[in-house]
């Protein structure tokens, strides 16, 4: 049904989304993480755009534009401002070191392929075959949330989860309604703004943005 070239592009873009998530585990430089995010945003927008062209769906085209704008430009831009305020800050000592993280990511990808078997069986097709990539992105993003210390890394983890969810949505439903995608994008944007404010005030009050040190607030 779909031409080979279009499918190739979608497959490549979906691969880039997952590769970006794994890249986020590997790189310690916070600026690199932000570049990874904008790469992922662009890949997602590509998926949406290809689907829009193929289906001739103008609404999906607008969604692609919104995704490119929000996830590819605005959110990474906001994060870059946080990082610029604290140059040279790196994810120095993650709770799980990089090699172990990469191995875990491999395990998570296997798990998501096992689980997504049920999803793809519902509506077998060349696109649903890619759904495990989105699921793996969600799991890897969650893993970033669990193991990385800096507030910016946490935001990146959250955005990875969101990107994974968006990818699964594009692939399984072949087009999210415009309204839903707009709402989701707006939510994510809001979360990023809140987290940015939080990170800034954390630095102002405690002199760092290391979440692990917040433990003292317990009790």
């Amino acid at each position, binding site marked *: 049904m779909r031409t080979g070239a279009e499918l190739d592009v979608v497959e490549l873009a979906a691969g880039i989304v997952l590769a970006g998530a794994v890249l986020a585990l590997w790189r310690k430089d916070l600026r690199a993480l932000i570049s990874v995010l904008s790469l992922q945003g662009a890949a997602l927008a590509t998926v949406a755009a290809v689907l829009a062209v193929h289906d001739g769906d103008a609404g999906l085209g607008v969604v692609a534009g919104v995704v490119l704008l929000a996830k590819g430009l605005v959110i990474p831009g906001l994060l870059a401002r946080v990082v610029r305020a604290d140059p040279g800050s790196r994810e120095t000592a993650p709770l799980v070191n990089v090699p172990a993280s990469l191995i875990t990511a491999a395990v998570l990808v296997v798990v998501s392929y096992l*689980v997504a078997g049920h999803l793809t069986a519902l509506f077998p097709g060349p696109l649903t075959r890619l759904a495990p990539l989105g699921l793996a992105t969600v799991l890897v993003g969650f893993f970033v949330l669990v193991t990385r210390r800096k507030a910016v890394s946490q935001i990146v983890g959250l955005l990875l989860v969101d990107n994974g969810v968006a990818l699964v949505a594009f692939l399984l439903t072949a087009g999210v309604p415009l309204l839903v995608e707009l709402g989701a994008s707006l939510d994510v944007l809001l979360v990023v703004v809140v987290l940015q404010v939080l990170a800034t005030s954390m630095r102002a009050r405690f002199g760092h943005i290391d979440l692990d040190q917040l433990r003292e607030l317990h009790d």
Partner: protein
Amino acid sequence: MSTAAYLIGLGIASAAALLGAVLPARRRLLGAAVLSSAACLAALAGAGDVLVSGHAFSLHTAQVLPLTGVDLSLDPLGAIFVVTTAVVGLAVSCYSVGYGAHQTPSRTATAMLPAFLTTLLLVPAAASLATFMVAWELMALASLLALLTEHRRRRETRDAAQWYAVMTHIGAAAILLGLVLLAAHAGGQSFAAIAAHRRHLSVPLASVVFLLTLFGFASKAGAVPLHVWLPRAHPEAPSPVSALMSGAMVNLGIYGILRVGEDLLGGGELWWWLVVAALGVVSAVFGALHAAASTDTKRLLAYSTVDNIGLVLIGVGAAGALAAGGEQALAGLVLLAALFHLVNHALFKGCLFLGAGAVQHAAGTRDLDRLGGIARKMPATAVLFGIGALSISALPGLNGFASEWLLLEGLLHGFASHSAVTEAALLAGVATLAITGGLTATAFVKALGVGFLGQPRSEGAGDAREVGPSMLAGMGLLAGGCVVLGVVPGVVLPALDRATTAGLAAGAPRAVLPGLGLALASVRGAIDPALLVGGLLVGIVVIWGALRLVPRSADLRSPRRAAAWGCGRELQTARMEITATSFAEPLQRVFADVLRPDHDLEVTHTAESRYFPEAISFHQRVDDAIERVVYRPVMAAVTWWGRLARRVPNGSVHRYLAFGFAALVLVLVVLA
């Protein structure tokens, strides 16, 4: 007619609860009391009609409760509980006018008492699982709030409420589990459907259901070892609430055991009822012992409730065991005695709690060691409390005697049954009746003698004034009931006979002959309390007259006057009189292994010599041994587990996120 009267009663009682909350402060108390009295009278008429005619009513509406609707049905067994509640409720409503008058009554207090009453009237009429559980939980909630109304800022009150809430919720959970299990296997949730299906239940399933519900109902009834909330909640609750709890609410535990064991499960196995009887024996002895050792009036009364519920459980257990052995006539007699004792207990314990409340109200304390001399300050209260105390001690001419005589007759005649195990249980029951009779008499000689006679031991007791007419009327109603049922017990026995027949799965023949006295129908045995009382009165008059005729010596014509109970001493002070603690001391020594009193003796010597003490202080506490042995270790274990669990969330965001992540991956792996 009975349906309408009963429903009108429920309606008025709910209206009383509503008005108690919204009326202006001055009208609140009287408005709620008048309406709840009217509600009790209406419910009394409705349930009384069911008892007299023997015709049950039932109705169903799909409204109110979603999915299941409400099923109400009142048979003679339920009606006897409604009647008892209504009589105690009438007295309590009357009493509450005077009790609450000394301060502006809070909305919660005036609203919760009628609300509690409504739920008490509702429970025995519930005829389906859903209706029953809703009514049961409403009752638990209303009683908990009513308990908290008076001294909610006191630590003891909050403790008591906590204990009560935990015990009642564990009990309700067990009942719910049992009934749901039953309904699931009986193919319906209405009691009629379950009872129709009872022959198809397997014995192990029925036994599990019975044990679960027995646990729940025993915790409401206050049977040892689930009694721990009673000696805490009853003293701390306002006295009208204590009277309702002890006179009406604990009865519903017995009702539940009978309803599930006999009606829904059809009598079941012999050993079920032996377990019930064993619970009864332990409760009766333990309760009576602690009542004899207590120095707090209301704590004493609470333990005495444990004792009396134990006697009722012995009766219920013996009746079930005899019925399981096919001895319907004897089973009917014993169950009739148990139900009669339940009714009598409601009357005299209600009267005693109201009396204790009146004394606390007037003297400002309920500690027997700080009371004394109340009889001279509050003569009417003393007489009414005295009638209650004599009734509970089972003195002839009062109702406690009538029901305990019946129970004893039933148990003794049961020796003719063919099962050795049942005979052993009956023997234990007879022995328990004997020992608790003595202990109860000791406890109430102490309460009356130390609390009401002698000289005041504190300023509060010295300044006590007689309480108002509404409070006396409330106590008087219940004390009057004690006297009437004691002298002419025959007036209520036909109604109790109908309740007994409805209460046993296989029915029962008539247990007593019609008449004013007690005459057994199936076995030999009769006694007429009216003749007994008449003979006693004639005897007293004759002796008094004879003494007047005998010429007196010169000494007796001009007697020297001294304080009563002072052994003729001129300078008798309150410090020289026997206290409640010292009165109970010999008994405490005998039963030291069970009661385990904690003594604390401190002697301060003078500076010059160790041979001359300057001050001696003595403190004694009698804690509940079961609470210490059973509950404390469980609570310590729960606390330890809680501490351990608190280490898991240590404030690290990453750890919390890891929990979520692990849970997500686990769920996914399980699904895959």
